[in-house]
């Protein structure tokens, strides 16, 4: 009860806001006993801790068994693959924290690429026009998912399963109808292709190491998502609609708008991924992308997102994607018998997730 002193003036403590900085700076005031919480204890509370430990373990493991794994060029390859997963896994994690699933993400990426490519080609338009149209269409798909969810109150599993199947059919049907084949025509000789490629599918050389631009997009999305999640009102609402939707509604959180926003965020990332797919290979296979949605969800879960919502982090999902990337490519670097490829991949994912769950349990005990 030492802290009874400031009880009188609610305005008093708020006046000193700037002095406190971002972190828990010990300014000596009596009610800041929480400051003395030890660093390990605070780390233990982070949702991504398990994933980080798993990632380090996996990294050390492959460094030991695969001698080519530690080369800069190899790491750049691993990072590239991780980024193509991670660009989607980060917003998918936000959506899962918000308590919802999206099974249409994998094919939505393909849809986005197809729209962009076919619009430019059929209209003989500058490729940037196709890119813009694709953004609108993809966001509309995300809006549709969120809107249907909030209107019908059906589980997101059903809604997005429907979207998934519809998009799979549309991808094939529309491509066949418009292009005459199941692959889009090459747009590499069209205006605007080179600049769009520079934005979505170029390679940067940083200190002698080639880094794909998707890695930059990935990092930008991690920063943006973390900012939204931890520092904005929307972030507070995301945690709330996932962790206790009725409580959130009762205090006036706009539940429907938050969820629609989350689905549109996923769509935005699908657009980025889709444009990468298009401008990296300049033609798009209309059947691609099926199955990737589960990989994105897996990455988010490995990264510490609860399947039931309300808990998780964007950084965690990114680390989850990195784990997936390392496991997937590490097996190639280690030159293991490919017949067992999928088994090792599955076992490693399971291990990482178990480790993650174990650490979280430990963290709760220490608290």
């Amino acid at each position, binding site marked *: 009860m030492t802290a009874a002193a400031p009880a009188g003036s609610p305005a008093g403590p708020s006046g000193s806001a700037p002095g406190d900085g971002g972190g828990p700076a010990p300014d000596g005031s009596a009610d800041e006993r929480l400051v003395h919480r030890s660093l390990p204890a605070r780390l233990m509370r982070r949702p991504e801790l398990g994933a980080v430990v798993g990632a380090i373990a996996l990294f050390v493991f492959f460094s030991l068994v*695969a001698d*080519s*794994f530690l080369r800069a*060029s*190899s790491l750049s*390859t691993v990072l*590239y*693959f991780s980024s*193509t997963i991670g660009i989607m896994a980060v917003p998918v994690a936000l959506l899962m924290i918000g308590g919802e699933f999206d099974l249409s993400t994998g094919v939505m990426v393909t849809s986005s690429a197809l729209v962009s490519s076919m619009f*430019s*080609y*059929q*209209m*003989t*338009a*500058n*490729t*940037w*026009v196709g890119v*813009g149209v694709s*953004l609108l269409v993809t*966001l509309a798909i995300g809006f549709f998912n969120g809107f249907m969810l909030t209107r019908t109150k059906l589980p997101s599993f059903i809604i997005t399963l429907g979207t998934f199947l519809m998009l*799979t059919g549309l991808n*094939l049907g529309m*491509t066949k109808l418009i292009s005459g*084949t*199941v*692959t889009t*025509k*090459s*747009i*590499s*000789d*069209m*205006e*605007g292709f080179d600049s769009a490629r520079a934005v979505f599918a170029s390679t940067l050389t940083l200190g002698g190491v080639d880094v794909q631009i*998707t890695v930059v997009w990935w990092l930008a999305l991690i920063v*943006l998502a973390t900012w*939204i999640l931890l520092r*904005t*009102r*929307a*972030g507070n609402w995301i945690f709330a609609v996932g962790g206790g939707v009725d409580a959130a509604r009762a205090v006036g959180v706009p539940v429907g*708008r938050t969820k*629609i926003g989350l689905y549109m965020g996923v769509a*935005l990332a699908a657009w980025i991924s889709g444009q*990468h797919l298009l401008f*990296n*290979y300049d*033609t798009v*296979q209309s*059947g*691609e992308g099926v*199955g990737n949605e589960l990989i994105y969800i897996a990455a988010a879960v490995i990264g510490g997102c609860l399947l039931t919502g309300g808990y998780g982090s964007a950084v965690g999902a990114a680390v989850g994607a990195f784990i997936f990337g390392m496991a*997937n*490519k590490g097996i190639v*670097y280690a*030159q293991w018998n*490919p017949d067992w490829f*999928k088994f090792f991949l599955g076992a490693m994912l399971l291990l990482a997730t178990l480790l993650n769950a174990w650490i979280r349990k430990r963290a709760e005990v220490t608290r």
Partner: protein
Amino acid sequence: MATVQRSRRSRASVRATGAVVAAVLAAVAALAGCSSTGGKRAEEARDQAASGKANVTTPRWKIAMVTHSGDGDTYWDIVQSGAKQAAAKDNIEFLYSHDKEAGRQAQLVQAAIDKKVDGLIVTLAKPSAMKNVVRKAVKKGIPVVTINSGQEVSSAYGALTHIGQDEQTAGEAVGKELNRRGREKAVCLLHEQGNVGHEQRCDGIRKTFDGKVEDLYVDGTNMPGVQSSVEAKLQSDKKVDTVVTLGAPFAATAVQAKQDAGSKAEIDTFDLNSKVATGLKDGSIGFAVDQQPYLQGYQSVDLLWLYRYNADMLGGGKPVLTGPQILTKKDAGKLEEFTKRGTR
């Protein structure tokens, strides 16, 4: 872009969404639309009609083709083009259906039997599952031709003939070609785990190739995944001097992976598409081994027509081979044109 993203995500408000829409529309308008190169307009300029009119007097027969193709497979698209071309010429109503799962493919064959078709074209990728239903069709008096896969069992099931390429033979042809080119270590890139035909192709290479062959499995529905796996393989094993892809779309991806990995490996591929033709032309792809899918489609429909019209049959009890045909730089010129219109 970052500002636009953030304002929409953080506020999740209708107003902000409206702003994004307006901004994108403005950007589209600012770019003023058109591309003076490539696109549909260029295609129309070079396009010649590839379809025709029926010029036979036979009644309108109904022929069904049931394949084990997955959704959106380029290869089967070309088979269909060929079949449709023959159907147009021969006044035939052409029905196409497909399912990559053998059980469901068998049901599709049953559906074709129920429709009382005048001819049936099937693929036997997983023969045992198809056995009963094919025999049933034969028993009902429907002439059956098998294509693409199932060469070994085709006649045993009662099919009139088989049109296709022997996967093993095709692989062997690749092995020989690699020897001729003095290659030493090849990677066989399998984009579908558990596909028997794919395994046979790699085994064929292994049989005739004097160098070493390693298998690399990738997930064909995830292009960045394919690219990075090939990159990883080339980085980890510098002795690899050849990558053989089993499907045309993966050849271009392998080329990209090779460039990113800074490797000098040669990329060779099974099957053909317009990007492979371009690759052959500019030298980024060494050779392609083709089994001529257009021919498989065209020939099977035409052959069934001939059988009904004149009781003709090709092969003399042996399979009719459409491949392997090794294609290199010297073939690239005309192939590029044909691949672009979707017939090679």
